[in-house]
């Protein structure tokens, strides 16, 4: 047995970086904090790679040939009830290690990139402190040993996302976007919390090892019907998925993601493309045995929500003009596909293809999507705008960005042999086995994906010649090198025999390329590219004609199907005006009014009584005399016996 307890340093280094940079960062030059953060990340990256190597290649497998799943580090954090306690620790299994690699790699690249990108910003030090905080929280989330630790880091991830989206805090749109992101995910987290409470109440544990082990109490308890004909366990899993859907921007909790693009672009690349938004996928994957065995209905919910989100977002992405928003909807769509893949998956062996495909896609997506975002960042950096109408013909000015962006677009469009092709093929294969209808939905999604990505690509790098205020120029080395490294990842990541490492039962298996599915998928992707090329390579009025021909539908898609407006209506109108305001009024006037009323009555009564004391001597005398006379009367006539 190899000692893995050093993995705790992967967590502690960014925390330390956060504290040091956050507390003392302003004593040094800004660049120092950037370099400190980046070198910390580098150490973590190396540690993660070493861990992955040791885990997959050195550590012997368990007796039944599966990868081991164990706690590398664990300590008691808080005792709740006799059985329930929160621990803090590091859980190692294939998916957590895969996430470690994804997070540290992307985060490292983003750090390097940010040194260049954020160079002129005032809050450079703050930015790196928050990035470290984010890395800490995200890593804590993926290595969580129990669901409560996951929830804790889940919240921390949310807050670091809040802080980073609101990085440009003097911009009102950034402030409200960060607020929106936090509140929407917070609302989802309420569901997560309720789910945790229900799950832990029926199973008596938070521990992942117990919960997802062979004899999990989750399989036996909580099976009774609770509400609407579903069992407690199903409900708790649906609630937990609600948390995951919030973080992963699944419909209808997706509204924060496009707005979150108000943050600096490296942040979007790190948080809103590669890592945090896939936390929901990771959560479902983490609890996958419970979903499969104890709550299949909840898994169906995951499948439908994922499928619907993917097509929904893909349609919207075709109509947006802000390049970061296109990428945001694309992210949502791709995560929908991952969710869908999890939803169609079975447990072991080839049935668990969906699970593997989902994780695979998560892995590859991290590379090409962060590459896309960083590329978009380089474009924005060059032209100081993020509306694609204001761009065009940039391929001459930004050769490296252009090349890497093209690779990423090809990868996401599923062109072989790039990364996206393999993972998407597995997803479609898994979907094909489960439901033919959803399979075609996903097929359309991949076509749309190719279309909108190349729409973006052509309008930015080809299209009309645009005149810029100052000639755009390629970004500095710190920005282009990460692009190139990630492009290599996007090129090659698909070649990894992923099913040999990650599977739902941790048993390696051999997966094959499904030619019957791969060919139509590639054809659909290529036709998407072709259409985009016809529409956008040269400036034509074709897109507008199509747009107008579709009429109401395209308008609705452009307005993101008015979901934002619905939310605004519910929050602003109903909660704020019709709940909170009446409550404030009620409190001031009814509750407080009752208290003040008591005081008023007392005061008034005493005022009345006080008036008897008129200061009129003769009145007092009259009362006195009348009293005496009355008493005399009483004593002489009535109380005599």
């Amino acid at each position, binding site marked *: 047995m190899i000692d893995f307890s050093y993995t705790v340093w992967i967590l502690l280094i960014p925390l330390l970086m956060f504290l040091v940079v956050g507390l003392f960062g302003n004593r040094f030059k800004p660049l120092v904090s950037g370099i400190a953060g980046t070198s910390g990340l580098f150490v973590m990256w190396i540690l993660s790679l070493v861990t992955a190597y040791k885990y997959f290649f050195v550590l012997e497998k368990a007796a039944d040939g599966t990868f081991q799943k164990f706690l590398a580090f664990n300590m008691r954090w808080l005792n709740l009830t006799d059985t329930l306690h929160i621990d803090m620790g590091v859980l190692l299994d294939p998916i957590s290690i895969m996430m470690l690699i994804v997070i540290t790699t992307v985060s490292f690249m983003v750090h390097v990139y940010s040194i260049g990108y954020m160079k002129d910003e005032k809050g450079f030090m703050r930015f790196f402190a928050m990035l470290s905080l984010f890395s800490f929280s995200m890593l804590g989330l993926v290595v969580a040993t129990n669901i409560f630790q996951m929830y804790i880091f889940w919240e921390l991830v949310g807050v670091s996302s809040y802080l980073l989206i609101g990085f440009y805090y003097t911009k009102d749109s950034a402030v409200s976007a960060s607020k929106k992101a936090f509140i929407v995910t917070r609302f989802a987290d309420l569901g997560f919390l309720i789910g945790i409470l229900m799950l832990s109440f029926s199973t008596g544990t938070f521990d992942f090892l117990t919960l997802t082990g062979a004899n999990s109490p989750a399989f036996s308890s909580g099976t009774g019907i609770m509400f609407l004909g579903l069992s407690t366990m199903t409900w708790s899993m649906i609630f937990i998925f609600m948390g995951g859907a919030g973080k992963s921007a699944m419909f209808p909790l997706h509204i924060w993601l496009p707005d979150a693009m108000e943050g600096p672009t490296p942040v979007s690349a790190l948080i809103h493309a590669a890592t945090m938004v896939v936390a929901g996928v990771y959560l479902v994957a983490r609890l996958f045995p419970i979903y499969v065995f104890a709550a299949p209905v909840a898994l169906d919910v995951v499948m439908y929500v994922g499928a619907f989100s993917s097509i929904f977002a893909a349609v919207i992405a075709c109509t947006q003009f802000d390049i970061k928003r296109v990428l945001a909807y694309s992210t949502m769509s791709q995560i929908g596909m991952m969710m869908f893949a999890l939803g169609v998956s079975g447990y072991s062996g080839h049935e668990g293809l969906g699970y593997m495909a989902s994780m695979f896609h998560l892995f590859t997506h991290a590379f090409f999507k962060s590459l896309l975002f960083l590329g978009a960042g380089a474009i924005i950096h060059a032209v100081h705008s993020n509306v694609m109408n204001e761009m065009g013909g940039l391929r001459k000015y930004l050769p490296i960005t252009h090349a890497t962006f093209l690779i990423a677009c090809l990868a996401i469009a599923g062109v072989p042999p790039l990364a996206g092709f393999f993972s998407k093929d597995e997803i479609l294969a898994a979907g094909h086995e489960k439901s033919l209808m959803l399979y075609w939905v996903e097929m359309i999604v991949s076509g749309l994906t190719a279309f909108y990505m190349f729409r973006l690509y052509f309008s930015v790098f080809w299209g009309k010649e645009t005149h810029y205020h100052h000639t755009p120029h390629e970004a500095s080395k710190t920005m282009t090198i990460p692009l190139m490294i990630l492009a290599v990842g996007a090129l090659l990541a698909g070649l990894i025999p992923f099913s040999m490492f990650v599977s739902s039962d941790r048993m390696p298996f051999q997966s094959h390329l499904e030619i019957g599915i791969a060919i139509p998928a590639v054809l659909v992707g290529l036709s998407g590219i072709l259409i985009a090329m016809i529409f956008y390579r040269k400036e034509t009025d074709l897109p507008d004609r199509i747009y107008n021909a579709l009429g109401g539908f395209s308008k609705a898609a452009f307005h993101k199907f008015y979901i934002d407006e619905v939310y605004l209506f519910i929050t602003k109108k109903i909660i704020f005006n019709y709940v909170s305001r009446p409550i404030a009024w009620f409190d001031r006037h009814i509750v407080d009014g009752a208290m003040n009323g008591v005081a008023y009555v007392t005061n008034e009564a005493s005022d009345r009584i*006080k008036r008897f*004391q*008129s*200061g*009129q*001597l*003769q009145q007092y*005398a*009259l009362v006195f*005399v009348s009293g005496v006379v009355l008493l005399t009367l009483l004593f002489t006539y009535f109380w005599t016996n």
Partner: protein
Amino acid sequence: MFEGVPLTWFLITGTIMFFVGIYGFLVRKNLITILMSTELILNSVNINFVAFNKILYPDHLEGMFFSIFIIAVAAAEASVAIAIIINIYRRLVNINVEKMDEMKY
């Protein structure tokens, strides 16, 4: 019965005088007239004391002594009261009892 005059007669005279005094006390506004009403009340009581003493207990003198003391107290009271009245008059330039309510509440 005292030489043909029954006790009740004295008492009734005293009573009427007493209540006339009370009436005066309650009605008059001028402080001096109120003082006069008080004298009436005191006197009516004196008559009763004396009449009781003479008719019911002719061998004793308590009633008479009480009257003497009452007269003494009345004298003291009158002097102090008039001093106060004059003082009030100096300050307020009138001695209307209804205006004197500064110390109410």
